[in-house]
Protein backbone atom coordinates (compact mmCIF):
# COMPACT_ATOMS: atom_id res chain seq x y z
CA UNK A 1 0.00 0.00 0.00
CA UNK A 2 2.81 2.37 0.84
CA UNK A 3 4.02 2.31 -2.70
CA UNK A 4 0.57 3.25 -3.81
CA UNK A 5 0.47 6.27 -1.59
CA UNK A 6 3.91 7.26 -2.71
CA UNK A 7 2.83 6.85 -6.27
CA UNK A 8 -0.19 8.97 -5.59
CA UNK A 9 1.64 11.78 -3.94
CA UNK A 10 4.25 11.74 -6.67
CA UNK A 11 1.49 11.97 -9.13
CA UNK A 12 0.30 15.09 -7.43
CA UNK A 13 3.53 16.82 -8.30
CA UNK A 14 2.82 16.27 -11.96
CA UNK A 15 2.02 19.28 -13.99
CA UNK A 16 -1.64 20.05 -13.59
CA UNK A 17 -1.82 20.80 -17.29
CA UNK A 18 -1.34 17.10 -17.90
CA UNK A 19 -4.14 16.25 -15.52
CA UNK A 20 -6.30 18.71 -17.30
CA UNK A 21 -5.41 17.17 -20.66
CA UNK A 22 -6.43 13.79 -19.27
CA UNK A 23 -9.69 15.22 -18.02
CA UNK A 24 -10.42 16.53 -21.50
CA UNK A 25 -9.51 13.11 -22.87
CA UNK A 26 -11.97 11.34 -20.58
CA UNK A 27 -14.76 13.77 -21.40
CA UNK A 28 -14.23 13.49 -25.15
CA UNK A 29 -14.35 9.71 -24.89
CA UNK A 30 -17.70 9.87 -23.14
CA UNK A 31 -19.06 12.43 -25.58
CA UNK A 32 -17.62 10.52 -28.53
CA UNK A 33 -19.27 7.25 -27.51
CA UNK A 34 -22.52 9.05 -26.84
CA UNK A 35 -22.51 10.71 -30.23
CA UNK A 36 -21.38 7.53 -31.99
CA UNK A 37 -24.61 5.93 -30.97
CA UNK A 38 -26.81 8.39 -32.85
CA UNK A 39 -26.84 8.39 -36.63
CA UNK A 40 -26.67 12.14 -37.13
CA UNK A 41 -23.83 12.81 -34.72
CA UNK A 42 -21.76 9.66 -35.16
CA UNK A 43 -19.08 11.04 -37.42
CA UNK A 44 -18.51 14.13 -35.33
CA UNK A 45 -18.37 11.96 -32.21
CA UNK A 46 -15.57 9.92 -33.69
CA UNK A 47 -13.60 13.06 -34.48
CA UNK A 48 -14.15 14.46 -31.01
CA UNK A 49 -12.83 11.29 -29.40
CA UNK A 50 -9.86 11.39 -31.78
CA UNK A 51 -9.14 14.96 -30.73
CA UNK A 52 -9.20 13.97 -27.07
CA UNK A 53 -6.85 11.12 -27.81
CA UNK A 54 -4.34 13.43 -29.51
CA UNK A 55 -4.45 15.80 -26.56
CA UNK A 56 -3.89 12.96 -24.12
CA UNK A 57 -1.01 11.49 -26.13
CA UNK A 58 0.89 14.72 -26.62
CA UNK A 59 0.17 15.75 -23.07
CA UNK A 60 1.82 12.55 -21.91
CA UNK A 61 4.83 12.95 -24.16
CA UNK A 62 5.61 16.50 -23.14
CA UNK A 63 4.26 16.90 -19.63
CA UNK A 64 4.56 13.52 -17.92
CA UNK A 65 6.93 13.54 -14.97
CA UNK A 66 7.95 10.74 -12.66
CA UNK A 67 10.32 11.29 -9.73
CA UNK A 68 10.57 14.81 -11.01
CA UNK A 69 12.11 13.92 -14.36
CA UNK A 70 10.30 13.81 -17.68
CA UNK A 71 10.33 11.15 -20.33
CA UNK A 72 13.32 10.37 -22.53
CA UNK A 73 13.89 8.44 -25.74
CA UNK A 74 11.97 10.99 -27.74
CA UNK A 75 13.56 9.81 -30.97
CA UNK A 76 12.28 6.27 -30.45
CA UNK A 77 8.87 7.46 -29.41
CA UNK A 78 8.38 9.72 -32.37
CA UNK A 79 9.77 7.15 -34.78
CA UNK A 80 7.25 4.63 -33.46
CA UNK A 81 4.42 7.16 -33.64
CA UNK A 82 5.24 8.06 -37.21
CA UNK A 83 5.51 4.45 -38.32
CA UNK A 84 2.25 3.55 -36.62
CA UNK A 85 0.46 6.56 -38.04
CA UNK A 86 1.62 6.03 -41.58
CA UNK A 87 0.96 2.30 -41.65
CA UNK A 88 -2.32 2.66 -39.79
CA UNK A 89 -3.65 5.40 -42.03
CA UNK A 90 -2.65 3.59 -45.18
CA UNK A 91 -4.17 0.31 -44.08
CA UNK A 92 -7.36 2.04 -42.98
CA UNK A 93 -7.68 4.05 -46.16
CA UNK A 94 -6.95 1.19 -48.50
CA UNK A 95 -9.21 -1.43 -47.01
CA UNK A 96 -12.33 -2.46 -48.91
CA UNK A 97 -15.60 -1.44 -47.31
CA UNK A 98 -16.59 -5.07 -47.00
CA UNK A 99 -13.36 -5.92 -45.23
CA UNK A 100 -13.99 -3.41 -42.44
CA UNK A 101 -14.70 -5.94 -39.71
CA UNK A 102 -11.43 -7.77 -40.29
CA UNK A 103 -9.55 -4.47 -40.23
CA UNK A 104 -11.20 -3.55 -36.94
CA UNK A 105 -10.26 -6.94 -35.60
CA UNK A 106 -6.64 -6.47 -36.60
CA UNK A 107 -6.45 -3.05 -34.96
CA UNK A 108 -8.07 -4.48 -31.87
CA UNK A 109 -5.39 -7.15 -31.78
CA UNK A 110 -2.71 -4.45 -31.94
CA UNK A 111 -4.22 -2.79 -28.88
CA UNK A 112 -4.26 -6.10 -27.03
CA UNK A 113 -0.63 -6.74 -27.97
CA UNK A 114 0.29 -3.26 -26.77
CA UNK A 115 -1.25 -3.96 -23.36
CA UNK A 116 0.57 -7.29 -23.23
CA UNK A 117 3.93 -5.72 -24.02
CA UNK A 118 3.47 -3.00 -21.40
CA UNK A 119 2.85 -5.64 -18.75
CA UNK A 120 5.90 -7.60 -19.86
CA UNK A 121 8.18 -4.58 -19.67
CA UNK A 122 6.83 -3.55 -16.28
CA UNK A 123 7.36 -7.08 -14.99
CA UNK A 124 10.87 -7.12 -16.39
CA UNK A 125 11.78 -3.77 -14.87
CA UNK A 126 10.39 -4.06 -11.38
CA UNK A 127 12.18 -6.83 -9.55
CA UNK A 128 10.02 -6.73 -6.42
CA UNK A 129 6.64 -5.26 -7.13
CA UNK A 130 3.97 -5.15 -4.46
CA UNK A 131 1.23 -7.74 -4.63
CA UNK A 132 -1.27 -5.18 -5.88
CA UNK A 133 0.96 -4.02 -8.67
CA UNK A 134 1.87 -7.57 -9.61
CA UNK A 135 -1.79 -8.54 -9.78
CA UNK A 136 -2.48 -5.66 -12.12
CA UNK A 137 0.49 -6.52 -14.30
CA UNK A 138 -0.45 -10.17 -14.58
CA UNK A 139 -4.15 -9.53 -15.23
CA UNK A 140 -3.37 -6.88 -17.83
CA UNK A 141 -1.00 -9.27 -19.54
CA UNK A 142 -3.50 -12.15 -19.58
CA UNK A 143 -6.38 -10.13 -20.96
CA UNK A 144 -4.21 -8.31 -23.46
CA UNK A 145 -2.77 -11.58 -24.73
CA UNK A 146 -6.15 -13.29 -25.06
CA UNK A 147 -7.48 -10.29 -26.94
CA UNK A 148 -4.43 -10.18 -29.19
CA UNK A 149 -4.44 -13.87 -30.08
CA UNK A 150 -8.21 -14.02 -30.45
CA UNK A 151 -8.32 -10.96 -32.67
CA UNK A 152 -5.69 -12.33 -35.00
CA UNK A 153 -7.67 -15.54 -35.41
CA UNK A 154 -10.84 -13.55 -35.99
CA UNK A 155 -9.03 -11.53 -38.60
CA UNK A 156 -7.77 -14.68 -40.32
CA UNK A 157 -11.23 -16.15 -40.34
CA UNK A 158 -12.82 -13.07 -41.81
CA UNK A 159 -10.35 -12.78 -44.65
CA UNK A 160 -10.72 -16.47 -45.30
CA UNK A 161 -7.20 -17.62 -44.49
CA UNK A 162 -8.39 -19.60 -41.47
CA UNK A 163 -11.30 -21.98 -41.82
CA UNK A 164 -13.86 -22.78 -39.12
CA UNK A 165 -12.59 -25.73 -37.11
CA UNK A 166 -14.42 -27.50 -34.36
CA UNK A 167 -11.71 -29.05 -32.19
CA UNK A 168 -12.94 -32.28 -30.58
CA UNK A 169 -13.31 -31.66 -26.86
CA UNK A 170 -12.53 -28.00 -27.49
CA UNK A 171 -14.64 -26.77 -24.64
CA UNK A 172 -12.87 -29.11 -22.24
CA UNK A 173 -9.47 -27.93 -23.42
CA UNK A 174 -10.49 -24.31 -23.03
CA UNK A 175 -11.70 -25.03 -19.56
CA UNK A 176 -8.40 -26.65 -18.63
CA UNK A 177 -6.43 -23.79 -20.13
CA UNK A 178 -8.48 -21.32 -18.18
CA UNK A 179 -7.87 -23.23 -14.98
CA UNK A 180 -4.16 -23.44 -15.74
CA UNK A 181 -3.91 -19.70 -16.30
CA UNK A 182 -5.67 -18.93 -13.04
CA UNK A 183 -3.55 -21.45 -11.13
CA UNK A 184 -0.24 -20.16 -12.42
CA UNK A 185 -1.33 -16.56 -11.91
CA UNK A 186 -2.09 -17.28 -8.26
CA UNK A 187 1.32 -18.86 -7.82
CA UNK A 188 3.08 -15.88 -9.37
CA UNK A 189 1.06 -13.13 -7.72
CA UNK A 190 0.81 -14.82 -4.33
CA UNK A 191 4.59 -15.22 -4.22
CA UNK A 192 4.41 -18.98 -3.70
CA UNK A 193 7.40 -19.72 -5.89
CA UNK A 194 11.00 -18.56 -6.11
CA UNK A 195 11.63 -15.38 -8.15
CA UNK A 196 13.34 -17.32 -10.96
CA UNK A 197 10.52 -19.78 -11.11
CA UNK A 198 8.00 -16.92 -11.07
CA UNK A 199 9.76 -15.36 -14.02
CA UNK A 200 9.44 -18.56 -16.01
CA UNK A 201 5.83 -19.05 -14.99
CA UNK A 202 5.03 -15.50 -16.06
CA UNK A 203 5.96 -16.27 -19.63
CA UNK A 204 4.23 -19.62 -19.28
CA UNK A 205 1.04 -17.74 -18.49
CA UNK A 206 1.55 -15.59 -21.57
CA UNK A 207 1.80 -18.69 -23.72
CA UNK A 208 -1.29 -20.29 -22.17
CA UNK A 209 -3.25 -17.06 -22.59
CA UNK A 210 -2.31 -16.93 -26.26
CA UNK A 211 -3.44 -20.52 -26.72
CA UNK A 212 -6.65 -19.77 -24.92
CA UNK A 213 -7.34 -16.82 -27.18
CA UNK A 214 -6.76 -18.95 -30.25
CA UNK A 215 -8.88 -21.88 -29.14
CA UNK A 216 -11.63 -19.63 -27.88
CA UNK A 217 -12.19 -18.02 -31.26
CA UNK A 218 -11.33 -21.00 -33.46
CA UNK A 219 -14.63 -22.91 -33.37
CA UNK A 220 -16.87 -19.88 -33.72
CA UNK A 221 -18.61 -19.51 -37.06
CA UNK A 222 -16.87 -17.07 -39.40
CA UNK A 223 -20.00 -15.03 -39.74
CA UNK A 224 -20.36 -14.64 -35.99
CA UNK A 225 -17.08 -12.76 -36.00
CA UNK A 226 -18.60 -9.28 -35.62
CA UNK A 227 -19.99 -10.39 -32.26
CA UNK A 228 -16.69 -11.94 -31.23
CA UNK A 229 -14.75 -8.88 -32.28
CA UNK A 230 -17.02 -6.72 -30.20
CA UNK A 231 -16.35 -9.00 -27.25
CA UNK A 232 -12.58 -8.95 -27.78
CA UNK A 233 -12.90 -5.20 -28.12
CA UNK A 234 -14.22 -4.96 -24.62
CA UNK A 235 -11.40 -7.25 -23.44
CA UNK A 236 -8.83 -4.85 -24.83
CA UNK A 237 -10.69 -2.04 -23.13
CA UNK A 238 -10.31 -3.80 -19.80
CA UNK A 239 -6.64 -4.46 -20.49
CA UNK A 240 -6.16 -0.74 -21.15
CA UNK A 241 -7.91 0.01 -17.86
CA UNK A 242 -5.38 -2.17 -16.01
CA UNK A 243 -2.75 0.08 -17.51
CA UNK A 244 -4.70 2.93 -15.96
CA UNK A 245 -4.34 1.33 -12.55
CA UNK A 246 -0.66 0.67 -13.13
CA UNK A 247 0.17 4.28 -13.89
CA UNK A 248 -2.62 5.78 -11.81
CA UNK A 249 -3.64 7.26 -15.12
CA UNK A 250 -7.23 8.49 -15.19
CA UNK A 251 -7.69 8.72 -18.93
CA UNK A 252 -6.53 5.14 -19.52
CA UNK A 253 -8.85 4.06 -16.75
CA UNK A 254 -11.98 5.81 -17.93
CA UNK A 255 -11.30 5.17 -21.62
CA UNK A 256 -10.60 1.49 -21.05
CA UNK A 257 -13.53 0.84 -18.75
CA UNK A 258 -15.96 2.80 -20.90
CA UNK A 259 -15.04 0.68 -23.88
CA UNK A 260 -15.09 -2.43 -21.76
CA UNK A 261 -18.63 -1.91 -20.61
CA UNK A 262 -19.91 -0.34 -23.81
CA UNK A 263 -18.39 -3.20 -25.80
CA UNK A 264 -20.10 -5.76 -23.59
CA UNK A 265 -23.48 -4.13 -24.08
CA UNK A 266 -22.86 -3.81 -27.79
CA UNK A 267 -22.07 -7.51 -27.97
CA UNK A 268 -25.36 -8.30 -26.31
CA UNK A 269 -27.26 -5.92 -28.59
CA UNK A 270 -25.71 -7.54 -31.65
CA UNK A 271 -26.75 -10.97 -30.47
CA UNK A 272 -30.25 -9.68 -29.93
CA UNK A 273 -30.40 -8.24 -33.44
CA UNK A 274 -29.60 -11.73 -34.75
CA UNK A 275 -32.10 -13.26 -32.35
CA UNK A 276 -29.45 -15.39 -30.66
CA UNK A 277 -27.95 -15.67 -27.22
CA UNK A 278 -24.30 -14.89 -26.56
CA UNK A 279 -23.76 -18.41 -25.31
CA UNK A 280 -25.22 -19.72 -28.53
CA UNK A 281 -22.78 -17.63 -30.52
CA UNK A 282 -19.76 -18.66 -28.44
CA UNK A 283 -20.51 -22.35 -28.52
CA UNK A 284 -21.24 -21.95 -32.18
CA UNK A 285 -24.39 -24.03 -32.23
CA UNK A 286 -25.22 -22.84 -35.73
CA UNK A 287 -22.33 -24.96 -36.91
CA UNK A 288 -23.96 -27.93 -35.20
CA UNK A 289 -27.37 -27.15 -36.61
CA UNK A 290 -25.81 -26.95 -40.03
CA UNK A 291 -25.22 -30.69 -40.27
CA UNK A 292 -28.74 -31.39 -39.09
CA UNK A 293 -30.64 -28.69 -40.92
CA UNK A 294 -29.03 -28.99 -44.32
CA UNK A 295 -29.35 -32.75 -44.13
CA UNK A 296 -30.99 -32.79 -47.48
CA UNK A 297 -32.99 -30.83 -49.94
CA UNK A 298 -35.50 -33.35 -48.60
CA UNK A 299 -38.47 -33.63 -50.81
CA UNK A 300 -39.76 -30.17 -50.39
CA UNK A 301 -41.19 -30.33 -53.86
CA UNK A 302 -39.61 -28.78 -56.90
CA UNK A 303 -38.39 -25.33 -57.62
CA UNK A 304 -38.92 -23.39 -60.84
CA UNK A 305 -36.11 -21.78 -62.78
CA UNK A 306 -36.57 -18.64 -64.80
CA UNK A 307 -34.60 -17.55 -67.85
CA UNK A 308 -32.74 -14.27 -68.13
CA UNK A 309 -35.04 -13.20 -70.89
CA UNK A 310 -38.21 -13.87 -68.93
CA UNK A 311 -36.73 -12.05 -65.96
CA UNK A 312 -35.97 -9.03 -68.10
CA UNK A 313 -39.50 -8.94 -69.46
CA UNK A 314 -41.02 -9.33 -66.01
CA UNK A 315 -38.92 -6.49 -64.66
CA UNK A 316 -39.42 -4.19 -67.62
CA UNK A 317 -43.19 -4.40 -67.44
CA UNK A 318 -43.43 -4.10 -63.66
CA UNK A 319 -44.53 -0.90 -62.02
CA UNK A 320 -42.53 -1.34 -58.86
CA UNK A 321 -39.55 -3.60 -58.19
CA UNK A 322 -38.01 -4.21 -54.78
CA UNK A 323 -34.41 -5.39 -54.69
CA UNK A 324 -33.42 -7.36 -51.60
CA UNK A 325 -29.67 -7.50 -51.26
CA UNK A 326 -27.88 -10.05 -49.08
CA UNK A 327 -24.47 -11.40 -48.29
CA UNK A 328 -24.12 -12.88 -51.80
CA UNK A 329 -24.28 -9.41 -53.34
CA UNK A 330 -21.36 -8.31 -51.18
CA UNK A 331 -19.36 -11.44 -52.00
CA UNK A 332 -19.93 -10.93 -55.71
CA UNK A 333 -19.04 -7.21 -55.34
CA UNK A 334 -22.10 -6.57 -57.46
CA UNK A 335 -23.25 -3.35 -55.81
CA UNK A 336 -22.27 -1.14 -58.73
CA UNK A 337 -23.90 -3.43 -61.28
CA UNK A 338 -26.97 -3.50 -59.09
CA UNK A 339 -27.13 0.28 -59.09
CA UNK A 340 -26.85 0.17 -62.88
CA UNK A 341 -29.78 -2.21 -63.12
CA UNK A 342 -31.75 0.21 -61.01
CA UNK A 343 -30.95 3.06 -63.39
CA UNK A 344 -31.84 1.05 -66.48
CA UNK A 345 -35.18 0.13 -64.93
CA UNK A 346 -35.80 3.74 -63.94
CA UNK A 347 -35.29 4.78 -67.53
CA UNK A 348 -38.02 2.36 -68.48
CA UNK A 349 -40.33 4.02 -65.98
CA UNK A 350 -40.11 1.26 -63.37
CA UNK A 351 -39.93 2.35 -59.73
CA UNK A 352 -37.09 0.61 -57.88
CA UNK A 353 -36.63 0.43 -54.10
CA UNK A 354 -34.34 -1.62 -51.87
CA UNK A 355 -35.53 -3.64 -48.90
CA UNK A 356 -32.81 -3.66 -46.26
CA UNK A 357 -32.89 -6.24 -43.49
CA UNK A 358 -30.97 -5.14 -40.39
CA UNK A 359 -28.79 -8.25 -40.32
CA UNK A 360 -28.43 -8.84 -44.05
CA UNK A 361 -24.78 -9.43 -44.89
CA UNK A 362 -22.12 -10.09 -42.32
CA UNK A 363 -21.95 -6.96 -40.25
CA UNK A 364 -24.61 -4.60 -38.99
CA UNK A 365 -25.28 -1.92 -41.57
CA UNK A 366 -23.40 -3.98 -44.18
CA UNK A 367 -25.95 -3.37 -46.93
CA UNK A 368 -26.23 0.35 -46.21
CA UNK A 369 -22.48 0.75 -46.47
CA UNK A 370 -22.30 -1.41 -49.57
CA UNK A 371 -25.01 0.40 -51.47
CA UNK A 372 -23.85 3.79 -50.29
CA UNK A 373 -20.49 2.93 -51.80
CA UNK A 374 -22.25 2.41 -55.14
CA UNK A 375 -24.00 5.78 -54.74
CA UNK A 376 -27.48 4.35 -54.42
CA UNK A 377 -29.56 7.26 -53.11
CA UNK A 378 -30.41 6.86 -49.48
CA UNK A 379 -34.14 7.44 -49.86
CA UNK A 380 -34.40 4.28 -51.93
CA UNK A 381 -33.22 2.13 -49.02
CA UNK A 382 -36.24 1.00 -47.04
CA UNK A 383 -35.87 -0.31 -43.53
CA UNK A 384 -37.48 -3.65 -42.85
CA UNK A 385 -40.79 -2.33 -41.53
CA UNK A 386 -41.25 0.09 -44.41
CA UNK A 387 -40.22 -2.54 -46.91
CA UNK A 388 -42.79 -4.96 -45.54
CA UNK A 389 -45.44 -2.25 -45.69
CA UNK A 390 -44.71 -1.62 -49.34
CA UNK A 391 -44.49 -5.29 -50.22
CA UNK A 392 -48.18 -5.47 -51.10
CA UNK A 393 -47.81 -2.85 -53.83
CA UNK A 394 -44.68 -4.41 -55.26
CA UNK A 395 -44.90 -6.39 -58.51
CA UNK A 396 -41.52 -8.09 -58.54
CA UNK A 397 -39.17 -8.80 -55.66
CA UNK A 398 -35.61 -9.44 -56.81
CA UNK A 399 -33.54 -11.24 -54.18
CA UNK A 400 -29.83 -10.85 -54.83
CA UNK A 401 -27.68 -13.21 -52.75
CA UNK A 402 -29.92 -13.05 -49.71
CA UNK A 403 -31.25 -16.15 -48.02
CA UNK A 404 -31.84 -16.26 -44.26
CA UNK A 405 -33.37 -12.80 -44.17
CA UNK A 406 -36.23 -13.97 -46.41
CA UNK A 407 -36.65 -17.45 -44.93
CA UNK A 408 -40.31 -17.96 -43.98
CA UNK A 409 -39.27 -20.60 -41.42
CA UNK A 410 -38.45 -17.67 -39.12
CA UNK A 411 -42.18 -17.00 -38.95
CA UNK A 412 -43.63 -20.43 -39.46
CA UNK A 413 -41.40 -23.13 -38.00
CA UNK A 414 -40.95 -22.97 -34.23
CA UNK A 415 -38.19 -25.60 -34.49
CA UNK A 416 -36.07 -23.55 -36.82
CA UNK A 417 -32.92 -22.08 -35.29
CA UNK A 418 -33.88 -18.69 -36.72
CA UNK A 419 -37.47 -18.85 -35.47
CA UNK A 420 -38.56 -15.48 -34.14
CA UNK A 421 -36.22 -13.35 -36.25
CA UNK A 422 -38.26 -10.75 -38.15
CA UNK A 423 -37.92 -11.26 -41.92
CA UNK A 424 -38.74 -9.50 -45.16
CA UNK A 425 -42.09 -10.95 -46.15
CA UNK A 426 -41.50 -11.21 -49.88
CA UNK A 427 -44.46 -13.46 -50.52
CA UNK A 428 -46.78 -10.50 -50.22
CA UNK A 429 -45.47 -9.29 -53.58
CA UNK A 430 -46.70 -10.67 -56.93
CA UNK A 431 -43.50 -12.35 -58.12
CA UNK A 432 -40.31 -13.38 -56.34
CA UNK A 433 -37.10 -13.90 -58.29
CA UNK A 434 -34.19 -15.38 -56.34
CA UNK A 435 -30.64 -15.04 -57.55
CA UNK A 436 -27.98 -17.25 -56.00
CA UNK A 437 -25.43 -19.69 -57.32
CA UNK A 438 -26.95 -22.96 -56.12
CA UNK A 439 -29.54 -24.42 -53.76
CA UNK A 440 -27.02 -24.33 -50.91
CA UNK A 441 -28.13 -22.80 -47.62
CA UNK A 442 -26.87 -19.44 -46.32
CA UNK A 443 -25.27 -18.42 -43.07
CA UNK A 444 -27.63 -20.20 -40.71
CA UNK A 445 -27.10 -23.43 -42.60
CA UNK A 446 -30.77 -24.18 -43.00
CA UNK A 447 -33.01 -25.01 -45.91
CA UNK A 448 -35.17 -22.18 -47.25
CA UNK A 449 -38.66 -23.24 -48.20
CA UNK A 450 -39.28 -19.97 -49.99
CA UNK A 451 -37.44 -21.31 -53.02
CA UNK A 452 -40.06 -24.06 -53.43
CA UNK A 453 -43.07 -21.82 -53.04
CA UNK A 454 -45.37 -21.14 -56.02
CA UNK A 455 -44.46 -17.46 -56.34
CA UNK A 456 -40.72 -18.02 -56.42
CA UNK A 457 -38.49 -18.58 -59.43
CA UNK A 458 -34.75 -19.24 -59.25
CA UNK A 459 -32.21 -17.39 -61.38
CA UNK A 460 -28.91 -19.18 -60.76
CA UNK A 461 -25.45 -17.67 -61.13
CA UNK A 462 -22.98 -15.28 -59.61
CA UNK A 463 -24.82 -12.07 -58.73
CA UNK A 464 -22.51 -9.77 -60.68
CA UNK A 465 -22.51 -11.86 -63.84
CA UNK A 466 -26.25 -12.39 -63.75
CA UNK A 467 -26.87 -8.68 -63.27
CA UNK A 468 -24.60 -7.77 -66.16
CA UNK A 469 -26.37 -10.22 -68.42
CA UNK A 470 -29.71 -8.96 -67.21
CA UNK A 471 -28.83 -5.36 -68.02
CA UNK A 472 -27.77 -6.35 -71.52
CA UNK A 473 -30.98 -8.29 -71.92
CA UNK A 474 -33.09 -5.39 -70.66
CA UNK A 475 -31.65 -3.05 -73.23
CA UNK A 476 -33.03 -5.29 -75.97
CA UNK A 477 -36.51 -5.60 -74.49
Amino acid at each position, binding site marked *: MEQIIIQYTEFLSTNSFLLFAYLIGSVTFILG*LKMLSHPETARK*GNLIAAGGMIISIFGTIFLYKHHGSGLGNYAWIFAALVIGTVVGTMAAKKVQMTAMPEMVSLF*NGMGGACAMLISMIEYHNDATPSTGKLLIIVLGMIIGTVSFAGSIIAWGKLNGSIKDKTIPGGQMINFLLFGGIIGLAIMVVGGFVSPDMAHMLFYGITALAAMYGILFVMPIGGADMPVVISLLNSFTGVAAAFGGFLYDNPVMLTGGIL*VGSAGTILTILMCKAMNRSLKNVLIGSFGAAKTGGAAGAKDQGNYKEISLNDTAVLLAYAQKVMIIPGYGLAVAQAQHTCHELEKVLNEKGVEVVYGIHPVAGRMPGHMNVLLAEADVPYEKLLEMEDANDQMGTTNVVMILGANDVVNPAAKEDPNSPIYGMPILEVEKADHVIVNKRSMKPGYAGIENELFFRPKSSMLFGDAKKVLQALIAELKTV
Partner: protein
Amino acid sequence: MDQLTSFFNGNYHLITIVILSVFLGIEVISRVPAVLHTPLMSGANAIHGVVIIGAIIVMGEAKDGDFFSLILGFLAVVLGTLNVVGGFVVTDRMLEMFGKKKKK
Protein backbone atom coordinates in the same frame (compact mmCIF):
# COMPACT_ATOMS: atom_id res chain seq x y z
CA MET B 1 -6.29 -10.46 2.63
CA ASP B 2 -4.39 -7.65 4.27
CA GLN B 3 -2.72 -6.85 0.99
CA LEU B 4 -6.13 -6.79 -0.65
CA THR B 5 -7.79 -4.44 1.82
CA SER B 6 -4.87 -2.07 1.66
CA PHE B 7 -5.05 -2.22 -2.10
CA PHE B 8 -8.75 -1.47 -1.88
CA ASN B 9 -8.18 1.45 0.48
CA GLY B 10 -5.34 2.83 -1.55
CA ASN B 11 -7.17 2.72 -4.84
CA TYR B 12 -10.56 3.57 -3.52
CA HIS B 13 -11.16 6.55 -5.74
CA LEU B 14 -9.98 4.66 -8.78
CA ILE B 15 -12.42 1.87 -7.98
CA THR B 16 -15.23 4.40 -7.74
CA ILE B 17 -14.18 5.77 -11.12
CA VAL B 18 -14.26 2.26 -12.56
CA ILE B 19 -17.77 1.61 -11.28
CA LEU B 20 -19.09 4.92 -12.54
CA SER B 21 -17.49 4.30 -15.93
CA VAL B 22 -19.06 0.86 -16.16
CA PHE B 23 -22.53 2.28 -15.58
CA LEU B 24 -21.86 5.16 -17.92
CA GLY B 25 -20.69 2.85 -20.71
CA ILE B 26 -23.83 0.77 -20.35
CA GLU B 27 -26.16 3.75 -20.26
CA VAL B 28 -24.57 5.50 -23.19
CA ILE B 29 -24.66 2.52 -25.50
CA SER B 30 -28.02 0.93 -24.81
CA ARG B 31 -30.49 1.70 -27.58
CA VAL B 32 -28.13 2.07 -30.54
CA PRO B 33 -29.77 1.28 -33.88
CA ALA B 34 -28.43 -1.94 -35.47
CA VAL B 35 -27.13 -0.02 -38.47
CA LEU B 36 -24.58 1.72 -36.26
CA HIS B 37 -23.25 -1.42 -34.58
CA THR B 38 -20.25 -1.75 -36.85
CA PRO B 39 -19.04 1.86 -36.71
CA LEU B 40 -19.70 2.00 -32.98
CA MET B 41 -17.64 -1.14 -32.44
CA SER B 42 -14.91 0.36 -34.53
CA GLY B 43 -15.04 3.69 -32.71
CA ALA B 44 -14.87 1.97 -29.33
CA ASN B 45 -11.94 0.00 -30.66
CA ALA B 46 -10.09 3.22 -31.43
CA ILE B 47 -10.81 4.59 -27.97
CA HIS B 48 -9.24 1.69 -26.12
CA GLY B 49 -6.13 2.52 -28.10
CA VAL B 50 -5.58 4.92 -25.20
CA VAL B 51 -3.42 2.08 -23.90
CA ILE B 52 -0.75 3.71 -26.04
CA ILE B 53 -0.20 6.19 -23.23
CA GLY B 54 1.12 3.34 -21.12
CA ALA B 55 3.42 2.34 -23.95
CA ILE B 56 4.75 5.88 -24.27
CA ILE B 57 5.45 6.06 -20.55
CA VAL B 58 7.22 2.71 -20.55
CA MET B 59 9.23 3.67 -23.60
CA GLY B 60 10.10 7.11 -22.30
CA GLU B 61 11.36 5.69 -19.02
CA ALA B 62 13.44 2.88 -20.51
CA LYS B 63 17.13 3.10 -19.54
CA ASP B 64 19.68 3.61 -22.26
CA GLY B 65 21.14 0.12 -22.40
CA ASP B 66 17.96 -1.76 -21.58
CA PHE B 67 17.23 -3.23 -24.96
CA PHE B 68 14.46 -5.48 -23.70
CA SER B 69 12.43 -2.43 -22.67
CA LEU B 70 13.51 -0.33 -25.61
CA ILE B 71 12.62 -2.86 -28.26
CA LEU B 72 9.39 -4.12 -26.72
CA GLY B 73 8.47 -0.55 -25.83
CA PHE B 74 9.07 0.59 -29.38
CA LEU B 75 6.91 -2.24 -30.63
CA ALA B 76 4.23 -1.36 -28.09
CA VAL B 77 4.12 2.26 -29.22
CA VAL B 78 3.92 1.21 -32.89
CA LEU B 79 1.10 -1.24 -32.18
CA GLY B 80 -0.73 1.23 -29.97
CA THR B 81 -0.50 3.90 -32.65
CA LEU B 82 -1.83 1.44 -35.21
CA ASN B 83 -4.79 0.81 -32.94
CA VAL B 84 -5.50 4.49 -32.39
CA VAL B 85 -4.86 5.89 -35.84
CA GLY B 86 -6.19 2.95 -37.80
CA GLY B 87 -9.22 2.76 -35.55
CA PHE B 88 -10.25 6.37 -35.90
CA VAL B 89 -9.55 6.51 -39.63
CA VAL B 90 -11.46 3.32 -40.40
CA THR B 91 -14.39 4.53 -38.31
CA ASP B 92 -14.41 7.84 -40.07
CA ARG B 93 -14.42 6.14 -43.46
CA MET B 94 -17.31 3.95 -42.44
CA LEU B 95 -19.31 6.86 -41.13
CA GLU B 96 -18.54 8.84 -44.23
CA MET B 97 -20.38 6.14 -46.17
CA PHE B 98 -23.33 6.38 -43.82
CA GLY B 99 -23.15 10.13 -44.08
CA LYS B 100 -24.26 9.90 -47.68
CA LYS B 101 -27.67 9.40 -46.19
CA LYS B 102 -27.93 13.10 -45.73
CA LYS B 103 -27.89 13.77 -49.44
CA LYS B 104 -31.64 13.56 -49.20
